[in-house]
């Protein structure tokens, strides 16, 4: 293994094994790069969206009585996904200025996705140069580094970009929503408004991730749901985070694993 000579001092967020792995693959760490975005969240945003469905109540046969209203708050979602894209773009600008081909070991720190007042995104990673890379392209980025990055490439993928997608559903409770949600009282009936809100948030986030991927695949996904109560409604936000990758070649199946018993502590 011959390490490429670093022409200048570099800084890196890589662990020692990941650093060794990068050198073995011919990647030369250039420096830590970062992007940051901070925005204030207008309380209007919490209402800006569109209605999806409303649920008439069974306990009143006449009038405008409702069990619940369900809506999608896409203004908030646009703000947050935009914030991530901007911060990521700033990091990639820094990387491009260093002449990097890509950024490895990308970490994303965010304020809580249902935060009422502010939206804060910090994206950072280690920019690397790859000998033989054509200059001028937009650097790629990935959460992976070292061994795992090598494995990704070995199984036929190349990294494109880190990604964040989300979808917020808002549910305003009317008359005894939990109880009359299905239009019937009793036990074991589907509480339709809540059921729909859960499904809307999750399906919306997956849909948004797919749109973001634009033909690529999203791997190593973490998907989580945050709940918040405010302005008289429940906000369900589903977030998805992962690395976008593209298949560059196909590989034959791996050999079946070998069974072992570990005698270690």
């Amino acid at each position, binding site marked *: 293994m011959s390490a490429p000579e670093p022409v200048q001092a570099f800084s890196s967020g890589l662990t020692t094994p990941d650093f060794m792995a990068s050198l073995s693959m011919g990647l030369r760490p250039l420096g830590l790069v970062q992007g940051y975005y901070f925005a204030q969240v207008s309380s209007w945003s919490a209402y800006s969206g569109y209605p999806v469905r409303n649920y008439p109540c069974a306990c009143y046969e006449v009038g405008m009585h409702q069990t619940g209203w369900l809506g999608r708050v896409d203004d908030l979602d646009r703000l947050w996904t935009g914030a991530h894209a901007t911060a990521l773009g700033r990091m990639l600008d820094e990387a491009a200025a260093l002449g990097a081909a890509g950024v490895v070991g990308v970490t994303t720190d965010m304020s809580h996705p249902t935060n009422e007042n502010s939206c804060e995104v910090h994206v950072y990673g280690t920019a690397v140069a790859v000998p033989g890379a054509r200059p001028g392209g937009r650097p790629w980025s990935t959460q992976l580094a070292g061994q795992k990055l090598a494995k990704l490439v070995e*199984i036929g993928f190349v990294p494109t970009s880190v990604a964040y997608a989300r979808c917020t559903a808002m549910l305003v409770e009317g008359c005894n929503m939990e109880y009359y949600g299905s239009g019937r009282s009793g036990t074991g009936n589907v509480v339709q408004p809540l059921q729909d809100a859960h499904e809307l948030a999750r399906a919306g986030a997956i849909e948004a991730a797919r749109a973001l991927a634009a033909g690529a695949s999203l791997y190593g996904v973490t998907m989580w749901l945050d709940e918040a109560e405010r302005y008289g409604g429940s906000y369900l936000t589903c977030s998805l985070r*992962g690395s976008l990758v593209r298949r560059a070649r196909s590989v034959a199946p791996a050999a079946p694993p070998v069974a072992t018993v570990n005698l270690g502590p």
Partner: protein
Amino acid sequence: MSSSPVPLGGPQNVEADLAEVGRALAEAQWAPDAGAAVTTSDLSLDEILLLHSVGLEPVEVAFGVGCTSVAFGVWQWGMGTVVDARQAFASALATAKSSLRGRAHQVGAVGVVGVDVQVDMRPHVCTVVMTGTAVRAVLDERSHSRFRVKYHSSFLCDLSARDFVVLANAGWYPLDLVAGASYVQAPRRAMGDAVRQSTQNVELSNFTQTLYQAREEAMADLQRGIEQVGGTGLLDAKILDRPVPFARHVVELVVYGTAVKMLAAEHQHPDISLVVPVDDRVRAFEATSLRTGGAE
């Protein structure tokens, strides 16, 4: 790089392989797309590799939700099992499962692996959420499925992709997620008894009977579930045992796991070897470890 399938871990020339990895990364921005498949997956790379070895690949993160109602007034102090809560759990579970199956079916999946199960009991609503990765069969050059097993409806399992592969190699396959639950109220002791017993060591037989019975009921539900899906057994049973947050005198017991069935003619015994890890804190990188595919 060629676009024809290349066996993993082929040539022993590690230096050359690593250089190839480097070249692929150099070309990453301009690499032509070899497969148009859009997938989202929460599996690790090792798990994707392992699944590929039995002819499966991830398609999409899939989920299922079930929110069902619990009637008013079932949480008051009383005796024995809260039947309504158990019933609400059962229908929430069924709704979540069919919603998860529906999504898996939509994306052409054979089943869902690594399903995470969340149970949230509230005074008037029980929510069960399941999240996992839908997987589909890999097709070979002649468009034949590389996955050999036929399922009538998609399988659901809370085993990791890794466990799925290890189990499949032994001839066993998962069928469905099954669960049983019981909600039981602690009986009350008569004041006189409590005073008389305060200094004694004594088994509270009616307490024991009530809770023990409730546990047996939950497990009986679980077993009925296995039989209904035609399984021969259940592996990796998870047991949640906790007081209900808003009604502390009620104990919630949820048991769930994956019903499995042996589909091979007989159990395939793997060759097992003993290993002693000699890791220290410092972990070095060596390219040959790429060849082991992350198998434990």
